């Protein structure tokens, strides 16, 4: 089996086989995470920089745990102390980091395209941990993992992605990834929260009526309303948003009995998700997603840092 990627920046560069290998590898790491010694020596001697130029708790923690469990040395770089605050350019910052002889950069930035820029400047492997409103590939992979684990396969799966499609980097990776795996994707959002061309992301259907869409769906992916990222106000009130687009207890009966609910977190309870749905023992796989985050990030680090693929078959 071959894995010919140096970076995880653009999910559309990955084939269905690449993604399945990543998910299968993630599954293998489950055993590691569930024993007493939750650590393997695989990345001993590798140095990973977590360059988070934008606040992030979940993604950064998840990467840090993944790195530690693989025995990589990791350096957290960023936050309010970043050199960019002092006026240093991104290029200079990356070149400085590279002088430390590092092997991989995990980058979160509020500007689209930064991971690619860093890859070009640094020459080391780069994982995009979210760039602006563009992509967030490890989030998409952990979503796929959770869906795969729950549903067993992606074939003919109908998936609704509901909410702020237009400002969501999660969607930038998730929707193309679902398409690569062969799912049928419906995006549901008020027109004010849709991107200009949902079809370019890969959406098969676009709707502004959640109630109409729900009965068909195997997976309902609720997006976080990112209040901090909405220029102007694209909906009149959180109350009305919840009324029209929230996955409420009332909507439970519209859903297939085996339909599951995903959310990238953190949840705005009472806005996009009722507690009834968020905590639903059968439907909600939200905590599975968080766990999957560690698994797929371990898998990504493992596959990207693995030595030259020389066809060694043992």
């Amino acid at each position, binding site marked *: 089996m071959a894995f010919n990627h140096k970076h995880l920046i653009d999910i559309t560069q990955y084939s269905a086989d690449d993604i399945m290998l990543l998910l299968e590898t993630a599954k293998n790491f489950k055993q590691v995470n569930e024993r007493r010694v939750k650590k393997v020596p695989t990345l001993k001697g590798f140095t990973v920089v977590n360059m988070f130029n934008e606040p992030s708790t979940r993604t950064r923690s998840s990467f840090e745990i993944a790195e530690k469990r693989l025995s990589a040395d990791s350096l957290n770089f960023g936050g309010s102390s970043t050199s960019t605050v002092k006026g240093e350019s*991104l290029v200079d910052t990356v070149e400085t980091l590279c002088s430390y002889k590092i092997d991989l950069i995990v980058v979160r930035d509020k*500007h689209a*395209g930064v991971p690619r820029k860093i890859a070009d400047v640094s020459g080391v492997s780069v994982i995009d941990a979210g760039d602006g409103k563009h992509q967030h590939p490890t989030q998409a992979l952990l979503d796929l993992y959770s869906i795969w684990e729950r549903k067993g396969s992606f074939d003919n799966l109908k998936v609704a992605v509901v909410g702020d499609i237009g400002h969501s980097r999660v969607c930038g990776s998730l929707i193309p990834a679902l398409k690569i795996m062969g799912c049928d994707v419906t995006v549901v959002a008020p027109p004010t929260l849709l991107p200009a061309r949902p079809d370019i992301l890969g959406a098969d259907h676009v709707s502004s009526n959640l109630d109409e869409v729900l009965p068909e769906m195997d997976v309902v992916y609720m997006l976080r309303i990112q209040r901090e990222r909405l220029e102007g106000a694209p909906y009149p009130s959180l109350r009305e948003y919840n009324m029209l687009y929230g996955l409420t207890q009332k909507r439970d009966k519209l859903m297939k009995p085996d339909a599951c609910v995903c959310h990238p977190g953190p949840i705005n309870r009472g806005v996009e998700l009722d507690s009834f749905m968020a905590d639903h023992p059968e439907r909600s796989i939200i905590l599975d997603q968080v766990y999957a985050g560690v698994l797929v990030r371990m898998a990504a680090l493992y596959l990207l840092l693995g030595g030259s693929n020389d066809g060694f078959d043992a």
Partner: protein
Amino acid sequence: MALMLKNARVIDPQVGLDEVCDILVRDGRIVEVGHNLTMEKGVERDLSGKVLVPGLVDIHVHLREPGGEQKEDIASGTRAAAHGGFTAVCAMPNTAPVIDNAMGVEYVKAVAAAKGKARVYVAGACSQGLKGETLSEMGDMVAHGASAFTDDGKGIQDAGMMRRVMDYASQFNRVVMVHAQDNGLVGDGQVNEGVASTRLGMLGWPAEGEEIEIARDIALCRLTGCPLHIQHVTTARGLDLVRAAKAEGLPVTCEVTPHHMFLTEDAITDEYQTCFKVNPPLRTAEDAAALVAGVADGTVDCIVTDHAPHTDWEKDREFELAPFGMTGLETSLGLVLTHLVNEGVIDFNRMVELMAVNPRQLMRDEPVKIEAGCVADFTVIDPEASWTVEAGDFYSRANNSGFIGAQLKGRATDTYVGGYATMEDGVVVE
């Protein structure tokens, strides 16, 4: 001093000239146009195989001085102009400080006269500080030589203010040039809204953000009678609005840039090349084709570059943080020759109208015709020269061209301003 330009194919639609002949120049003006001319004493140049046209004019250029000299200054910007075959440029007023009063106009004209290699028309700001709030002293600026007015780079947001600008300007026989951008629609838009904005995950700059302003300003032109020039039209529908206004008989003109004609939003890949970040943004292939059609059918009056130099370090950063704009002076003619003239979309006559005759008329300057008595501003073109655009060849201080690496055929070899060479055999004359 006398100058004899011999054996060039001289093309000037203003006088119906297209033949190989000689031009004798003395004291900055044409003395005689004819065959087998001779002179007693002076400089003689053999331009066999070359095409000579009235000096090209680019009426949309950012020379950055005062205030932005690290990007470009009047000396380097006019050298880039000469190198690109331009005999005159119009400097935009969005400098620091803004050129919104007579003192600013005088400063730019004085520096240009002292250090420049091209004539510099000065566009004054319509509103003080480009804020779109208070009228600038247009009358005083005209008295000190301002050639046009514009709030380029921003656009005047309030329709009432725009009406005041046009009402007031209409008394000065000057064109009001508009950068059509509705901030409510455009916001922090980075690239064309649609495929590019979705694909790249950045805020979109919708075509309607431009078209609404064009429609509004055409209506205000109808109301005020003030001559209106729409800068860098980028969309098919925007051009249709201009076409309709012209059909109606309104004093409306417009310009397009090479980059909006010959590049599209598809040029911006996952590499997020900041050299393609321009305002207005690169649009769709359909829009680009419509602009070319407008150039051919006469809807477009001028080809301009919106030459917008920036330092390497300003451009070499996050796309969303990089400034808008690309340079154009040194690639414009080559691109127009390669993609329009050589392709048969337009002929040399039409090119001269777009790049010399109409721009000069919009600056309200006297025409440059190839006939006795006229100012001796010429551009000499080698139509057969094949060349590759390289940053190292630029006279501009900036390298932010979107056409680095482009293979072009045809370029200016000599540029004459008032009978003096500013460029000879491809080299700017110092």
